[in-house]
């Protein structure tokens, strides 16, 4: 809680601070004088009159007056219509004062104009600064582009297999050329950093300061270390065994470039990968796999096992391996004909086992379809249809009513929905025992 003295000081503090320098003088006409003596003045240009505080001049309604507005008060300074004396000098002085006031107003306007000019000048300067900033940004961008262009040059030379490898393995010597040799790469040497830099556009007048790169010796060393030609083809040995011969027992992996394709061998001399028409041999000593996440065959050398997996592995054209692995049933049926009667028999398999006998017979439904339409034949593991009943182009459809597991059933049976929201008919809850 703020005490009263401090609150008062706080308010006064604000009042004093609010006073600011501004135009304070104006002219107007006395509009009325109230009974309490308050003089009202209609300032020139104003719409309504304003009360004044105590006046130092004697005034009457209609008098032209000079006033001062300051500190929340309007004070009449002088009566233009009724000068205090008839003295001509006083009138002159008043005129001079009025002129000075007008001058002051003009000066005020000039100052405002100057301020506006200054603001415009500042805007122009800001704009120039922005242009300079933009130019700086453009210069930076240009520099970036030129660096990128040089990088591009470096990449091209890398692709040609010259620059990077050579600069690491060769030796630099001052050129003895007396004129620029087309296609040759010259370098400049920076004695401070010790760097050799390729010259993008060689200048004949600078030729005596250029260096060139000698790689013969380095190339010989490289060939001795990493390449060998045998009757099978060219061997590349990244790990470096210059004495490699046609046996597959050199340390480390090596690649053979032969006339019938390329081969990659591991350190044990086992073929890891080949790029030939005949494919790749398995090696029981090494892990091996083919395929991807959805379907793969995996050989684990340490366990000696082969795993076939993935959600999209299929047997034949239609059966998913996952259906067999999860123990779902596969339905089929066959038929025989004797004495003009067809006998259809349902077959239900889980894996390789025939589990038809383990399923209640009312899970096998039969329908006759012929030119008369579809006729239900009831349920059971078998069904019989006579030739005449089958009719012209008749066929019998067998349907296995799917097993439903893990569903909440309504009491007394009825319809419930499966996880996809489809309505399914629930029969007796059963599970095929394998």
């Amino acid at each position: 809680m703020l005490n009263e003295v401090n609150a008062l000081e706080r308010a006064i503090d604000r009042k004093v601070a609010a006073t600011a320098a501004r135009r304070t003088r104006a002219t107007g006409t006395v509009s009325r004088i109230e009974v309490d003596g308050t003089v009202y003045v209609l300032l020139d240009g104003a719409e309504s009159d304003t009360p004044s505080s105590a006046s130092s001049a004697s005034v009457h309604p209609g008098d032209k007056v000079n006033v001062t507005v300051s500190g929340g008060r309007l004070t009449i300074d002088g009566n233009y219509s009724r000068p205090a004396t008839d003295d001509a000098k006083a009138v002159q002085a008043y005129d001079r004062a009025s002129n000075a006031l007008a001058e002051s107003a003009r000066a005020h306007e000039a100052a405002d104009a100057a301020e506006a000019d200054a603001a415009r000048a500042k805007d122009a300067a800001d704009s120039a600064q922005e242009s300079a900033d933009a130019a700086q940004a453009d210069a930076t961008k240009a520099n970036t582009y030129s660096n990128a262009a040089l990088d591009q040059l470096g990449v091209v030379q890398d692709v040609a297999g010259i620059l990077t490898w050579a600069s690491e393995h060769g030796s630099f010597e001052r050129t003895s050329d007396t004129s620029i040799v087309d296609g040759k790469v010259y370098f400049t040497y920076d004695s401070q950093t010790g760097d050799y830099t390729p010259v993008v556009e060689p200048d004949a007048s600078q030729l005596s300061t250029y260096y060139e790169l000698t790689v013969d010796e380095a190339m010989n060393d490289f060939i001795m270390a990493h390449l060998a030609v045998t009757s099978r083809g060219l061997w590349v040995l990244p790990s470096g065994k210059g004495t490699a011969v046609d046996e597959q027992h050199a340390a480390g992996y090596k690649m053979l470039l032969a006339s019938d394709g390329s081969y990659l061998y591991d350190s044990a001399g086992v073929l890891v990968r080949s790029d030939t028409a005949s494919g790749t041999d398995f090696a029981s000593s090494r892990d091996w796999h083919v395929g991807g996440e959805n379907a793969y065959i995996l050989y684990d050398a340490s366990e000696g096992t082969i795993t076939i997996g993935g959600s999209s592995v299929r047997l034949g054209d239609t059966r998913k391996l996952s259906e067999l692995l999860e123990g779902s049933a596969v339905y089929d049926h066959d038929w025989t004909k004797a004495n003009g009667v067809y006998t259809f028999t349902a077959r239900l398999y889980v894996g390789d086992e025939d589990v038809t006998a383990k399923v209640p017979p009312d899970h096998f439904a039969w329908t006759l379809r012929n030119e008369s339409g579809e006729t239900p034949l009831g349920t059971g593991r078998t069904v019989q249809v006579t030739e005449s009943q089958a009719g012209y182009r008749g066929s019998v459809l067998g349907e296995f009513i799917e097993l439903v597991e893990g569903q909440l059933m309504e009491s007394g049976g009825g319809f419930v929905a499966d996880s996809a929201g489809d309505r399914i008919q629930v029969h007796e809850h059963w599970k095929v025992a394998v």
Partner: protein
Amino acid sequence: MDWAGSYESSFRVDRIDPVTWEPCGTVENVTDIEVDRDGTDDSPMLETASMKATTDPSEPFEDGWLRVTMNAIQYGSSESVAIATLWFSAARGKYNRGYREDELEGVSVLRQASGDAKIGDGAWAPAGTDGARWCADRLSALIDAPVHVAGNGFAIGEPIVFDLDSSVLEAVWTVLRAGGWTMHIDGRGEVHIHALPTEESLVLDRPGSCVLMPGTDYREGTKTYSREWWPDVRPFSLVRAAMPAYGLDGLYEVRSQRLSCGRGIVVEESVKEVESA
């Protein structure tokens, strides 16, 4: 919401309908929101703000009233707090990777009552009238934002003749100061005219309570420190501090604030001592 506790915060910028003073759209991709509140005498409009907005070059930013709202989530419950509402216009912009980034500058709701909005030479406020209502009427006639008077107002003691060339806003401040009153702009941009506060809005007494961050800066007659957001503390509010170790001990009046919206709001606050401990 326990503002001294930790909370998650996010910020939303809505476009405000000048008639209903309610949101009529959202401005996306706004960053670097800063709000400056200033209760010193050379800042009659009380508020300025700035933010950056990234827009599609084909749809440049349209000037208008924007409201910044902080959504705070704490222990699963959330609260939206309007932080500031100002008139934003693009001061400058640049193109960056196909987008246009505008730097927006915001001016206070009181801007409409200043500048060319003159009170007129010779204008005055009569003695005996309710100064608060007088101010509210003058502002309401000019500004889009709603204006409210808290309490019963105050009677003007002597007629007040306004300085020549005064704006309406300057006249309003003259009347308010004469009565020992003030005004503030809330987060919704609404103007509240009220007596100078006599009760503290915030108590700073625990360095670890996350209300006050370490680091106090002393400038001429004022002290400056940073703290985290606390509702309803603004210029003219009183802050009671009992942290002599930070050089803050006594009752202080808030003079100015800078709100930087990011992870929560960091408030850099300048205060002036009005009562020592």
